[in-house]
């Protein structure tokens, strides 16, 4: 596995910011009431993450350890503010819905975390990819939670997508359980976010455990054979 594959796997699965590092939970839980809100915040976070990772990587040799953190925070804050202004200009309605959570991207620990743990020690290209993959991992979890909550809570999926994609997206709304569905309130309220996020984390842990088990089984087989017979094939 080369470096880039490892970065990708890390961001999306092994070290997923939302499911494993449990960073950025505040926006994660607060804006995932619907798919479109989750997507808006997820994309904004991703843009900031890529931008800050690249800039931090560029300046990594110019700043000493003493002023590293203030410099990073300054970069992240300016990227966030730029994103906020752009969202305000191009997706005004969505900006109003997401409200305070856009400026709060600054405080999303996964961004400063990646800047400090990865981008400040790596070249520009890997840093950009790391930002993209971490952002993607965060976005995917947001979308999953947003989608699940919207389906259970309102019986719809992709409602109000025109907030992001313009007039053409007005009729993207899918009514999963038909128009008559009354909605299941808990899913839309804050507890629903915790429940869905918890279930997703559990699901990931189960999957990981399964993978581990299978790997262990395979390993045992090879180990047994390798003690007695030497062949030119695969030996672990």
């Amino acid at each position, binding site marked *: 596995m080369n470096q880039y594959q490892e970065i990708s796997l890390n961001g999306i699965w092994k070290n997923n910011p939302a499911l494993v590092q449990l960073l950025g939970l505040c926006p994660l839980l607060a804006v995932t*009431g619907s798919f479109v809100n989750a997507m808006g915040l997820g994309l904004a976070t991703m843009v900031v993450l890529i931008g800050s990772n690249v800039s931090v990587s560029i300046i990594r040799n*110019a*700043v*000493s350890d*003493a*002023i590293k953190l*203030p*410099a990073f925070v*300054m*970069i992240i*804050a*300016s990227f966030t*503010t*730029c994103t906020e*202004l*752009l969202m*305000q*200009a*191009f997706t*005004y*309605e969505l900006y*109003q819905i997401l409200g305070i959570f856009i400026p709060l991207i600054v405080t999303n620990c996964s961004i400063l975390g990646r800047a400090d743990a990865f981008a400040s020690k790596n070249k520009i290209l890997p840093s950009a990819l790391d930002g993209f993959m971490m952002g993607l991992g965060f976005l995917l979890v947001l979308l999953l939670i947003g989608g699940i909550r919207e389906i259970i*809570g309102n019986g719809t999926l992709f409602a*109000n997508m025109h907030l992001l994609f313009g007039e053409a997206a007005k009729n993207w709304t899918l009514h999963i359980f038909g128009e008559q569905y009354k*909605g299941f*309130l808990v899913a*839309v*309220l804050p507890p629903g976010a915790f429940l869905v996020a918890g279930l997703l984390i559990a699901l990931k842990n189960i999957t990981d455990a399964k993978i581990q088990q299978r790997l262990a089984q395979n390993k045992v087989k090879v180990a047994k054979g390798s003690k007695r017979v030497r062949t030119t094939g695969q030996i672990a």
Partner: protein
Amino acid sequence: MLTQSISKNSLILAAFALVTAGILALTFMKTAPRIADAEKRAAQQALLEIVPDSRHDNDMLHDIWQIPEEQLMELGLSAQSNIHIARLNDAPVAFIVPATAKDGYSGDIKMIIGVNVDGSIAGVRVLSHKETPGLGDRVDLNKSPWVLSFNGKSLQQPQTEKWKVKKDGGEFDQFTGATITPRAVVHQVKQTLEFFERNKSALLEQSPTQAASSIPTESVSSQHSTTSQSE
């Protein structure tokens, strides 16, 4: 040695601050006109929903009547606000009154209420609220068509004492599981109609030229060309 590193570090940080501030200023300047435009469109959108383009030909956003300070309380407002006037051929056709219902289930329910010249309701829209999702939030047109039931109602039709939710012996539906929210909205709409009746003469006297003088005529025509909805 120490002072040297301190001054070097602070110089670097200062350079950073300058660069980031420059980027921010640039983005701000580039996006400012678009943001102003988006804000204006959002404000206009709500007005247009109540009084569509087919019913008026003036710039409602700037044709305003300032609500007298001592009367703000009646509408539940705390800050200085304006009534927007819709005119067709310079004759007023409807007034769009901002109002806030203070007695909702949680927090203020901000709305705008369109009143036709004859005292009937042109439309009610809830702009912002913090009511319970799934219960009280059905006052929002996105969630339920309930607010449309106000259309065409006036203080005579139904009678004043019927301006209540059905549970209180009135005319208007409440929601299952939520009576407080619709009760608050119905009450505030009634208050607004009464406010309108009291101030009708002052509102009708407001001359269109006074407000229109500050606005170039082109803004009226551009508003017409960009409009897309006509319900």
